[in-house]
């Protein structure tokens, strides 16, 4: 079989088929239109260029709490209107908040596209007309239960907060997670809601994506009709990159209700758009995207030292982070896991990346790329997020090509520069009452 010789990359072929158009309304709202009549549906995405990174001190978790409030009605929409109208129309909807942006979306039958635009434009323009203390109190309770459910009740999850705080200095935009602290959620007031809305939710800080069974002309006409009259907000300050470097290794321990200890090694890395972003992403794949990647194979096939291995590279607007997380197998100590991990990383540095493995990970990446774009909503979402975070809807496809183009030497170089020659956080999550199971440093 000779598939490797084949192949303009599917990524290239498929990415270029996402023909889209950008149109900017006079109030600054960026419109990305993606006509695609493969199904009788329309996807509407609104991305606001604000996330937890822009929260004020003492108000962690606010961007996400605010996202919840956008489903509580607005000037012309009843408090349960968003979910009720879209569900009744046969659609789906949701929202989510990350460090850098907040995203709202619905997918509806294409004959109901205007319904979604009515709802989205009303909360962009008239949210405060319908805001009440009762809504804030209720959604604060809901969000605090979300935090309990997804962070406090889930094994190993609460350590994520400690990790963020160890990787980035106090006050750094990424030093806390979007879910925030109970204390800060309790402190949020209606004035905070109004201030945040006026500061960040103007049309000139947002991208509207319309994908699916709609023509370019009609998309522009409808966007103009529903959003055109909304007033521009204050000019948003562009987010500022603040990459950091640790001065020395930091070891920390979190006790949790778990049976097996887990080690996370984490490094601060450069922000999105840096020259090393693509190679870092490929490094994560070479280390752990497949069961035959370097770490997974060594820890879970060649020897059985671990129950699970994951690895990820995230590059945001402000900074980046690279993490390796390994849950020990029964009877294996974290010191051994730690020592073996560094041994394996040094092997890659010394011997270079196995070219056959690199080639396989390129194919894997290409297939994952196609899969991530399997629906009109996913394709529209990719274009919109790319527009908001990279300033160009097509940039995500170009980025995917850079990942695939990363050479063995590129990958080896970022491994040396950002991991092996840089201080890291060594986070041990240990069973309650066993602090001695923690790692104390990278040289055991």
């Amino acid at each position, binding site marked *: 079989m000779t598939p490797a010789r084949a192949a303009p990359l599917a990524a290239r072929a498929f990415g270029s088929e996402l023909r889209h158009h950008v149109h900017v309304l006079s109030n600054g709202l960026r419109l990305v239109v993606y006509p695609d009549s493969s199904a009788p549906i329309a996807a509407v995405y609104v991305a606001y260029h604000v996330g937890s990174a822009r929260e004020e001190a003492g108000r962690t978790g606010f961007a996400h709490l605010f996202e919840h409030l956008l489903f509580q009605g607005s000037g012309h929409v009843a408090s349960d209107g968003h979910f009720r109208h879209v569900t009744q129309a046969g659609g789906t909807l949701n929202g989510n908040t990350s460090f850098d942006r907040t995203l709202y979306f619905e997918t509806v039958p*294409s004959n109901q596209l205007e319904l979604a635009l009515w709802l989205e434009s009303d909360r962009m323009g008239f949210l405060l007309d319908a805001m009440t203390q009762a809504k804030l109190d209720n959604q604060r309770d809901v969000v605090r*239960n979300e935090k309990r459910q997804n962070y406090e009740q889930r094994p190993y999850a609460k350590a994520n907060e400690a990790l963020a705080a160890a990787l980035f200095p106090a006050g750094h935009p990424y030093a806390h997670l979007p879910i925030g602290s109970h204390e800060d959620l309790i402190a949020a007031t209606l004035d905070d809601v109004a201030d945040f809305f006026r500061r960040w939710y103007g049309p000139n800080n947002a991208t509207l994506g319309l994908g699916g069974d709609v023509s370019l002309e009609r998309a522009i006409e409808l966007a103009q009709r529903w959003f055109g009259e909304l007033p521009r907000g204050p000019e948003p300050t562009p987010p500022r990159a603040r990459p950091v470097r640790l001065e020395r290794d930091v070891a920390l321990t979190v006790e949790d209700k778990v049976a097996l200890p887990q080690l996370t090694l984490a490094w601060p890395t450069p922000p999105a758009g840096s020259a090393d972003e693509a190679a870092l992403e490929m490094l994560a794949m070479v280390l752990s995207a497949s069961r035959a990647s370097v770490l997974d194979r060594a820890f879970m096939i060649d020897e059985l030292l671990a129950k699970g291995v994951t690895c990820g590279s995230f590059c945001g607007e402000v900074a980046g982070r690279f993490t390796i997380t390994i849950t020990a197998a029964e009877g294996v100590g974290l010191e051994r896991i730690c020592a073996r991990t560094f041994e394996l990383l040094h092997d890659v540095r010394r011997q270079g990346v196995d070219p056959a493995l690199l080639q396989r990970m390129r194919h894997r990446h290409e297939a994952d790329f196609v899969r991530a774009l399997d629906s009109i909503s996913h394709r529209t979402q990719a274009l919109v997020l790319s527009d908001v975070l990279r300033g160009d809807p097509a940039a995500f496809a170009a980025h995917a090509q850079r990942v695939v183009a990363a050479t063995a030497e590129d990958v080896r170089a970022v491994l040396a520069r950002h991991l092996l020659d840089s201080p890291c956080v060594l986070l041990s999550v240990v069973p309650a009452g066993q602090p001695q199971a923690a790692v104390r440093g990278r040289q055991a």
Partner: protein
Amino acid sequence: MKLDRRTAPPRSGPLEARLPRIVRRTLDNGLALATCRASATPETLIEISVGGGRSRERLDELGLASLVAKLLQEGTRKHTTVELVDALDYLGASLHAAVDEDSLTLSLRALDRHLGPSLELLIDTLLEPRFDALDFERVRTLRLAALRSRGEEAARVADRAWDRLLEGPLTSLGHSALGTQATIAAASVARARAFHERSLDPRGARVALVGNWSADEAAHWLDPLVRRWPSALAAPSGFEALPASAAAAGLYCVDRPLAAQTELRIGHRAVAASHPDWLLLAAMNYPLGGQFSSRLNLNLREQRGFTYGVHSGFEARRGGGSFTVGLAVQSRHTAESIREVRRELAEYLAGPTDAELAFTREALEQGLARQFETASARLSFVHTVEHFGWPDDYPLERLRRLAALAPADLAELARAHLHPSDLRVLAVGPRAELESLAQAVRELDLDGAPLADASACGARASVGPPA
């Protein structure tokens, strides 16, 4: 024209939703093929189901079906584990094996231009698994570790205990799909191989293929499978799961004294997917707990803020289904949440309002537009139709029947299929929070077995009142 924002804009025209068309063939080895076209992405999805499900596990081999599914992914006669994974990575293909109640399913997702060699790997995996002793030990060791960690996540503890309460200890379906320390310790390569062999017979198997191919092209792609899999390699065992023996109605608890939240499961057994009412049950449940704007979610989340979300639903199984309300609540609101769920269920016996019924009809009808968009959605449609033997147009059949019903008819359905006076209530959280319900609490171990029961695996002594 001045824009009127006061009311929702009307639809711009009628809906043009069409169901995907399923085309069937019987292949030369007796294998039943169902195909459906999907052309949005350059991928083909193939799913092969054979009769190796959990209901074929005897009680002394619990966990074997899922162990076999894991082992199938550990190499073939021609490939070691690493070689198999490397080959799949090289092709950009993904291959998974999973078990449910009554089948073992291998799923392949392949790029069209690598479909031939990807399919060969799927066939190798199905027909010529390696079953290497070292691979087996590795899979077993990881499974034992998973079993030791099984108490970590309250939601998973609740799911397992809930199966046990509804199915009872006498059938494999009442136990964790992971098995137990004892059965996994007793498992062997020979047992795994035997289980695999008695599952393999193309006459009882189904294959579904979804991609940008006609039925003839799909059948042609499967030629190598037909060639390599002559019928009656092995006779399927007649063993099926023993009947369920649900626990009595009442209040059950897995005590987690310091938990911030309590996981709740509230419900009872329900009819099998073959029941004539089945297609209407999802519609009947829709206003109660089937979507965000349901009575349960508006009450417990949007009004009271006790939970991040609550859902109710009927689960389809061939051998008898279940009705479950599932949610996680802040622990101090446990008792009140249980009272509210009970109240909502009792009130719903009066059926939905006119507005709720109209809402349900419209939502289900309009929802057809987006339900079958992706290849994986189409595969899941084919799977459902084939698995339950429902008509190819069952979503339309549901709408036709629903159109003929009034709220009073749905009230009748609710009374026939919801039993608020016969509920099992399971709380995984602080037991002390249940005191105000003034009701006997039966305490369970991590596997859902009564703590007083000598056969229970739990290490803790029984402290609960007599059951």
